[in-house]
């Protein structure tokens, strides 16, 4: 095993240069903040999810009660057996009777614990899955601008980590009730058996609680530190795995191993500290248990001697002592679980509370198949941030069946125009009509059916080729799927795949080339068979031969449909019926290729550069303009 001493080496490096700009891994943005133990609002929200299972909650609480009572009764029965069943010369039937009662209690205990654990466990799972479903379904409807600015990883950590810690909480909360009851019951029974002895024994409880609370705060920070150190180290490992090619290319393996060694050492130290703190409670609890037993042996013994209590009571006390440290231990544990759950619950409700901006209005009607594929923008203004509109008062109309190319430099508002047609966002001013209806007056579902979209980056799902092309168009049979694939020229390469249309696509189609993925996404749009096709042409470099195929497929796709294409390629632009040129959110020119060239405006300037792809256009047009004016 690698037994290097990283500290020393690193020290020598540091002597050489005080400014070493090297780290491995990154500090995790800690999301595991401990919240308040109890948060009324969060509890209320979570309760809404538990409410449908009200009956199960009742059953499990009842079972917990039965379980606790049976637990409490057993030492009492032992005591009874000792005191009245085992005295010399007593009828054996008395002992037998006690044993029969014992058997009944044991069966109750058996049934109650089964019922309680099964019902609680299952219910916790169901609630958990309900919460996750509610969140997921909510995310399907929240505005895209929210999704744009929220990383998938963050949402996933809420859908998984936070939901899981809720589960832990739900499962333990019923157990916590049981623990509380048990503790309370033991104290009551002890007082009932002999209050003086009970007081003497129970003096250890406040000491234990006090120590435990003092310990908890220190221990928690140590646990957190260990957890954090561990996840930083793991993060660095993940980075090394994902970035291994970059690391090797830049010959950083040696230095990285040293830096990682340091992280590992930190983790080691933090974990030892946490381990020390978690173990230190054991002798304390044992000492207190020992003291309690000693008190019973001594004071209880004296009481037996003086005849105040019977020896069975003393034995019962000894049994109870061994029992009552358990609930205290688990209760303090549950304290942390609850804190974590509240923090998680808070983050869950945050997701559930994200506002839904784009909703079907009450009077929304579905677009019918008789509605045509026309599009009209009337004075549309829109901005992701209302103070800074990216689309400024644009008006244009596209006739059914016409193909229009949207052209303009980065930031000109092309993508926003495209998103607005589909009502991904709500316009700030003006109106958009599809098939003659204001998009706000039709149902989103029918709008989706009316418009098909091809995004710049082809996005494929895990599943077969067939499933990916069909996607949500459930009405399309296999033949329709194959026909579409043929139409866009994807059929041949699909057949060449190991299982043809049944080939599984892995990791977003990484087993296909970019051009092939593009063709699949074309086929998907074709199967959807919508009146309007909106497309953001891919900018990625594909070889020129694939490019030709894609151009041909595009023509197939646009046949008989209204097409709006954000065009990056000259070939695409020249094939369009009309070109709309956008600049900084405004429509500056429109017409066909020749008209625009004659106009001598922005389009002709762009064209003069003779770039093969319009994506090559310089992004910073304003500085460009300045250059032209001088």
């Amino acid at each position: 095993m690698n037994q290097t001493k990283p500290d020393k080496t690193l020290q020598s490096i540091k002597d050489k240069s005080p400014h070493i700009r090297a780290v491995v891994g990154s500090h995790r943005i800690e999301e595991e903040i401990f919240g308040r133990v109890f948060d009324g609002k969060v509890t209320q929200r979570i309760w809404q999810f538990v409410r449908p299972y009200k009956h199960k909650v009742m059953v499990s609480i009842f079972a917990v009660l039965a379980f606790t009572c049976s637990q409490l009764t057993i030492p009492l029965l032992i005591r009874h057996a000792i005191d009245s069943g085992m005295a010399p010369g007593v009828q054996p039937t008395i002992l037998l009777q006690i044993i029969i009662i014992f058997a009944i209690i044991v069966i109750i205990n058996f049934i109650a614990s089964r019922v309680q654990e099964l019902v609680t466990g299952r219910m916790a799972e169901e609630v958990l899955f309900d919460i996750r479903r509610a969140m997921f379904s909510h995310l399907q409807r929240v505005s895209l601008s929210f999704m744009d600015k929220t990383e998938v990883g963050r949402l996933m950590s809420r859908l998984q980590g936070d939901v899981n810690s809720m589960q832990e909480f739900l499962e333990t909360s019923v157990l916590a009730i049981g623990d509380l009851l048990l503790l309370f019951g033991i104290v009551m029974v002890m007082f009932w058996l002999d209050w003086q002895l009970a007081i003497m024994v129970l003096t250890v409880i406040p000491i234990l609680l006090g120590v435990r609370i003092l310990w908890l705060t220190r221990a928690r920070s140590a646990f957190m530190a260990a957890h954090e150190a561990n996840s930083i180290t793991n993060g660095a490992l993940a980075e090394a795995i994902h970035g291994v090619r970059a690391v090797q290319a830049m010959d950083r393996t040696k230095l990285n191993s040293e830096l990682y060694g340091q992280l590992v050492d930190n983790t080691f130290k933090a974990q030892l500290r946490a381990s020390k703190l978690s173990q230190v409670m054991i002798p304390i609890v044992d000492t207190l248990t020992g003291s309690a037993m000693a008190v019973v042996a001594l004071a209880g013994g004296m009481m037996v001697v003086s005849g105040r209590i019977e020896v069975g009571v003393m034995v019962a006390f000894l049994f109870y002592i061994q029992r009552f440290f358990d609930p205290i231990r688990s209760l303090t544990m549950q304290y942390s679980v609850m804190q974590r759950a509240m923090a998680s619950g808070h983050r869950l409700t945050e997701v559930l509370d994200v506002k839904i901006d784009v909703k079907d209005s009450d009077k929304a009607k579905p677009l019918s198949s008789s509605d045509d594929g026309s599009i009209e923008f009337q004075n549309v203004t829109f901005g992701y941030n209302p103070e800074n509109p990216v689309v400024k008062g644009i008006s244009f109309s596209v006739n059914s069946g016409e193909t229009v190319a949207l052209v303009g430099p980065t930031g000109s508002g092309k993508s926003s125009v495209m998103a607005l047609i589909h009502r991904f966002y709500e316009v700030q001013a003006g109106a958009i009509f599809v098939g003659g209806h204001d998009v706000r007056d039709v149902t989103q579902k029918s709008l989706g059916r009316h418009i098909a979209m091809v995004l710049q980056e082809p996005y494929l799902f895990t599943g077969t080729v067939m499933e990916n092309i069909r996607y949500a168009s459930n009405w399309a049979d296999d033949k329709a799927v194959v026909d579409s694939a043929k139409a866009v020229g994807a059929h041949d390469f699909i057949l060449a795949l190991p299982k043809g249309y049944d080939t599984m696509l892995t990791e977003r189609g990484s087993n296909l080339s970019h051009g092939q993925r593009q063709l699949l996404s074309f086929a998907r749009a074709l199967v959807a068979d919508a009146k309007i096709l909106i497309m953001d042409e891919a900018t990625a470099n594909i070889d020129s031969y694939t490019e030709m195929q894609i151009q041909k497929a595009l023509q197939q796709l646009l046949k008989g449909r209204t097409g709006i294409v954000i065009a990056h390629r000259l070939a695409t632009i020249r094939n369009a019926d009309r070109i709309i040129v956008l600049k900084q959110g405004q429509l500056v020119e429109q017409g066909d290729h020749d008209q625009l060239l004659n106009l001598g405006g922005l389009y002709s300037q762009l064209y003069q550069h003779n770039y093969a792809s319009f994506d090559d256009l310089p992004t910073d047009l304003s500085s460009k303009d300045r250059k032209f004016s001088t």
Partner: protein
Amino acid sequence: MTKNNQSITGTSSNRTFRRTGTVDPHAGLDAISRITRMAFRYPTRAWLAIIATIIAVLMQLSIPVFLGQAVDQTQAVAEARAEPETLYPIAFLLLFASIARGIFTLIHNYTAETVGHLMARDIRNAVYGKIQNLPFSFHDRTHSGDLITVGMLDLEGVRMFFSTALVRTVLVGLLIGLGAALLLSTNLTLGLLALSFVPFAGWRSAVMRLALRKTWLILQERLGILSQVMEENLGGIRVVRAFASSEHEMKKFEIASKSALRLSHERIETRVQNTSIMTLSFFVSMGLVLYFGGRQVASGEITLGTLATFLTFMTILQMPVRQLGMMVNGYARASTCGARLFALIDHESEINNVPDAQDLKIIDGTLKLENVSFAYKGNTDRQAVTGISFEAKKGETIGVIGSPGSGKTTLMHLIPRFYDPTNGTISIDGQDIRRVTLSSVRQAVAVVQQDSFLFTTSIENNIAYANPYTETSQIHDVAESAQLHDYILGLPDKYETIVGERGVSLSGGQRQRLSIARTLMMKPTVLIFDDSTAAIDAETENRFRTAIKEFAKDRVTLIVAHRLASLMHADRILCLDNGQIIEQGTHEDLLLLGGRYRDLYELQMHPNPEILAKKAGIK
């Protein structure tokens, strides 16, 4: 990420690590013995843990005995009406035994965990070093998720082995063995009754743990599918919205969710059924002991204290018996985890330094390839690169062009020795790159890769990645050359801005420029741009090309690109097809030649679909 044209057929069959699946039992046993040996590499701590365990067990066993004596003495004192002073020693013994038990439990737990953490420290360093040094060919075949599982979860399985399995075996074995001896020697019938639940509960516990482990592995897989459904949905939310397919997506979610939920329920049932039956068997034993013991107490055969000892002992024994299952699980887990972990640690790297390798000595900086061929592992029938020879001198710029799959990237990956050619030699200033140290080759040959991986740290640290001791001014210089300086100054934290997975997200072009900047920082002898300017707009690329003109004078520059504009100016252009050089010469030469290069030129500069379709042979 390399583009090694892996077909679907080749991916799953020759992977080295899999998250699930069985491990050969022999390897499992080997792993267990190797982990044990690793633990005893810290002999003082390991033995201390075991000795402390033994003492803790003895203390634990003495408590029921003392309790029984306390009861008996109390009864005796009560009957004899003697002075209660005789109770002091026994009370003191109880207290003493409890404290000692606590302290030795602390020692045994703490030292056992320490041994685990020490092992984890060693293994972590070994795994990290291994992963970093294994060649590209290994990483091509290995799923990164599987490596992460090995480095994180399997590590835990191995770490926990000493404390949860090995030491616990000593603990449980002694506790049950000595306890049984004690009880059976005291009273054979009662002892047998008291212990009757042990084999049953122990067996149930082991069965349950193994069953739970199995379902847990399946559950992990199903939850994996569920999270995949969610992740793909959220990642592709625009597609989902575009096709208004939330219903379709919810259906997928429901299916994945229900199948996970069903298994989850199964898991709970397995657990509850087994634990409740274990508890039941315990209470049945207790009832029997209570009845028959009670009869014996009544008849005076045994004392009440003896009965109390039996009952207390049973209570104490309940916990370790339940833990038997955990123990068995610990062994099972360590054997699979260990086998996978050691398979990784022991994996031989194909690309190593030869013995006594010297550093590469740069004299003129001439790169020479002689008859170089290469085929990917597992795809040996098809050569990705065949018989390539060329020479490039300091100051020369060579362009490489060709359709996807023509072997451009593969060729570029041979020069820094990411892979070793199957045939032919690559040399720099006459020194075969396989004969000199790997590190010196990597420093001399720098590649700007297609997919630029950024590290989650400041821009400054990213640029200085290859040369962390550099000056700030150097960093600014290369950033300026890469046309990135102005952009960085516009960021809120300037050069301190965190980028990468958890930092500010950069556009494709910005990422590429950052990647270029950090490569320039290496001041290599051979500088390779592997299709790494595709996302940079033409004008910026132009400025960049001017900026590095001086820089290129001192080195060989290789440029791979699809866009002709990126390499038209090169001193020589190699046109690759099917792993071979089919045309080479200057831009003008190649245009005159009227071959493949000319076609590409026409296609990119004067795109007229009909004419080109004819040329490309697409109907």
